[in-house]
């Protein structure tokens, strides 16, 4: 339940999200689940929130809608609930010789909920629709690696870049070709070694023909292909899913009916779980996290798991604010932050101190990449800063979006910096997330600012390339290191996974050398459930694993 918008890529932990984190004492490995293997059937209710956009997988980049769509749509690839490792779902095979030309065969006989068969063209059409800029699909940028993507983008300026001359040159990407009913090919502009991993993200789901007849009506009652079908979306109240009897995949759900009850705030949802009026709450409010209150409220009915999320502090680009140019100054600031105490006191243990720029949940994670620069040492921080000639400006600023519950930890972080370095540090709230992001995007934000990254797909690449490659979409600090870019390109072209991971790790080590940003902590998700259900497990994405949940 991170409010993290996947598109903006950064930062969004909504108020809900802050509350979302769990609590805990660091023993989060081991059994976060109660015993599985319960009976099939029955109904459950789950905490839900208002989807931001119509329920179309290509247009949903936040978890309120995403949690629902994950059940309604199956994808080519399925991520393992525990390890996030990709396995073929609708795909029979995904083959490539050069990481640039991919041949995808889909299983025969798969059906959408309306009974039509899933064919190769359902994928190609959906992807072209999503990438075609005038359609304004939220997840359109996921198709960027595919050849011909640029021709589907608008070129005009102003309020409506798609008007008149700005209209895209083409409506279909040249890199997508339907071979036969069950086979299609993808050609990417550059080598992309982890493309098969990406295909499990909801943006890559197939859409039935009925979608193209009336996309708007479809968004209110989507016809999917997953283990559950959507019965009704009662706006502001609930979203009701029922089991898809025709589901032939390997990951069916156990319960017959899932109702997402929509709440404005997680506190009442939590109270409903205490009263057994709601079955699963996918995040725990801050009020119950303090002193592990939820553990005594919901004994044996809570779970916590590390999920693919990292929070960092970015530095404004040198052209905007040169005060943070020196690597030594950056390292001094990083060493001045007492991550352990902040996590314990502000987050009640629902974060893990970051020791690098990549989340531990993905394959290729290497511990302690940041080294001593991410270890709190007030004296060393001060001496490092003095050796670097002190802080050039009069005060350090740390900006955050004031609508996301970030005030507490930014204030605590600033206090920690202030006490260790003796330099004034001010946490500055920016009124809301949209304003905050646009100030960063326009390169007007000075000083340091917070950024959160929720992985789109479980790959080490997703934590490095979009954030730190020269000119990448979410490279907010305008970090640029040719050596880093080179390693990322090499890794993307590598055919051997181990080799690719090692190259990515080398690239990450460069981030540590340059202190491209300050890693803060990795996220955890905490859930609680009522007496009515059993077998609740948290996936590596922080969602409920519905293949395990059953009614008690």
């Amino acid at each position: 339940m991170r409010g993290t918008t996947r598109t903006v890529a950064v930062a969004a932990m909504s108020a809900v999200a802050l509350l979302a984190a769990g609590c805990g004492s660091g023993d989060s490995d081991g059994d976060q689940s109660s015993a599985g293997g319960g009976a099939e059937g029955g109904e459950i209710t789950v905490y839900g929130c208002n989807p931001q956009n119509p329920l179309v997988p290509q247009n949903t980049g936040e978890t309120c809608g995403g949690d629902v769509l994950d059940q309604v749509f199956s994808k080519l690839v399925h991520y393992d609930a525990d390890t996030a490792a990709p396995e073929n779902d609708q795909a029979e095979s995904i083959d490539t010789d050069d990481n640039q030309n991919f041949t995808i065969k889909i299983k025969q006989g798969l059906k959408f909920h309306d009974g039509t068969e899933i064919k190769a063209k359902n994928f190609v059409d959906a992807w072209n629709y999503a990438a075609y800029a005038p359609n304004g699909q939220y997840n359109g940028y996921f198709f960027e690696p595919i050849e011909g993507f640029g021709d589907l983008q608008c070129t005009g300026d102003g309020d409506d870049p798609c008007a008149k001359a700005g209209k895209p040159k083409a409506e279909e990407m040249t890199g997508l070709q339907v071979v036969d009913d069950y086979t299609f090919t993808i050609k990417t502009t550059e080598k992309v070694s982890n493309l098969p991993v990406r295909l499990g993200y909801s943006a890559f789901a197939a859409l039935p023909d009925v979608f193209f007849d009336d996309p708007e009506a479809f968004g209110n009652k989507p016809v999917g292909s997953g283990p559950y079908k959507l019965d009704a979306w009662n706006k502001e109240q609930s979203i009701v899913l029922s089991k898809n009897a025709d589901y032939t995949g390997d990951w069916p759900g156990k319960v017959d009916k899932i109702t997402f009850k929509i709440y404005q705030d997680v506190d009442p949802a939590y109270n409903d779980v205490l009263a057994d009026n709601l079955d699963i709450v996918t995040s725990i409010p801050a009020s119950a996290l303090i002193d592990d209150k939820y553990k005594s409220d919901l004994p044996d009915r809570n779970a916590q798991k590390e999920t693919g999320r990292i929070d960092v502090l970015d530095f404004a680009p040198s052209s905007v604010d040169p005060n943070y140019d020196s690597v030594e100054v950056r390292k001094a600031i990083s060493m001045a932050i007492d991550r352990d105490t902040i996590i314990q006191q502000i987050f009640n243990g629902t974060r893990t101190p970051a020791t690098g720029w990549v989340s531990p949940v993905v394959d290729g994670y290497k511990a302690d990449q940041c080294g001593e620069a991410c270890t709190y040492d007030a004296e060393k921080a001060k001496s490092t800063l003095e050796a670097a000639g002190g802080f050039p400006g009069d005060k350090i600023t740390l900006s955050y979006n004031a609508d996301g519950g970030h005030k507490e930890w930014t204030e605590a972080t600033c206090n920690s910096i202030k006490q260790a370095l003796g330099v004034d540090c001010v946490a500055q709230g920016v009124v809301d997330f949209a304003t905050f992001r646009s100030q960063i995007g326009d390169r007007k934000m000075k000083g340091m600012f917070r950024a959160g990254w929720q992985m789109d797909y479980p790959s080490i690449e997703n934590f490095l390339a979009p954030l730190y490659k020269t000119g990448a979409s979410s490279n907010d600090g305008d970090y640029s290191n040719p050596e880093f870019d080179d390693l990322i390109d090499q890794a993307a072209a590598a055919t051997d996974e181990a080799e690719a991971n090692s190259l990515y790790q080398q690239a990450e080590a460069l981030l540590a050398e340059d202190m491209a940003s300050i890693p803060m902590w990795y996220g955890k998700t905490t859930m609680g459930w009522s007496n009515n259900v059993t077998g609740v497990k948290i996936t590596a994405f922080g969602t409920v694993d519905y293949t395990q949940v059953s009614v008690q």
Partner: protein
Amino acid sequence: MTEQSIVEAPPTVDPHDAGEVGEERSLASDAWRAMRRNPLFWVSAVMIAVFVVMAAFPGLFTRTDPTVPVLAEARSRPGDGTWFGRDIQGYDIYARCIYGARASILVGLFTSIGTVLLGGTVGVIAGYVGGWVDSLLSRIGDVFFAIPLLLGAIIFLVSLPDFFNNNYLLIVLKVVLALVVLGWPSLARLMRSSVIQVKPNDYVQAARALGASPGRIIRSHVLPNALAPMIVVATINLGAYIAAEATLSFLGIGLQYPAISWGIDISSAIVGLRTTPHMLFFPGMFLSLAVLAFIMLGDAVRDALDPKSR
């Protein structure tokens, strides 16, 4: 906002005391005499004095800097090395409560002065001049009166430019401005009706007949005799404005960092309601006591100024 429903004519001379001679018995001394006998007055006066000293010289009460936290001891209970414990950030709650008095007293005082000046002036002009001026001013007052205080203040504060967040005084002034803009009409109405009541009195007519200028008549004859209800309401309102400031700060739009305010502290302590309620209790108690003190003082003043209640 409290409003006086019945405005009494100021007492002239109390018949019971008429027999005593040699002592000047002005309205003020009369009120003072009555107030001195009221224990409510003394209780509230002592409390207010303490709060005012707290606001002016917080260093007398604590040597702890309210902006230096000990994060490792965050949420510690009262008595664990500090009088009132520590809050979520590890700030000393006792020091925060002491330093929070300044913002509340300043906002309450400035807002009261502002509303008295603005509302009083408008009320006197409307009441004394009458006619279309009265209608115009009263209707303008009605427009502001119709805006709910909190809603209006939220809109007002959110739309103010960032300039007001520059330093402590400006942050306080911003809240004062919002409350004055929305609070003056009740005092203007009160003043207008008092003035209308005083205006037909013989001594006013006599002064006019003798050729006194309107300014002089208002200054020497109307104002002294019409001021009492406004003083009472302004005093009671002072407490209400302190509460309003805390409410706005609680909502995150009133006072902001670097200002320290009870409202801010209450807001940040709310998550601990079930687990560490002391974080909420102490700033809440200080706020309640301050509001109570001013409302009690207002009550005592009313008792003193209103001869009917004697």
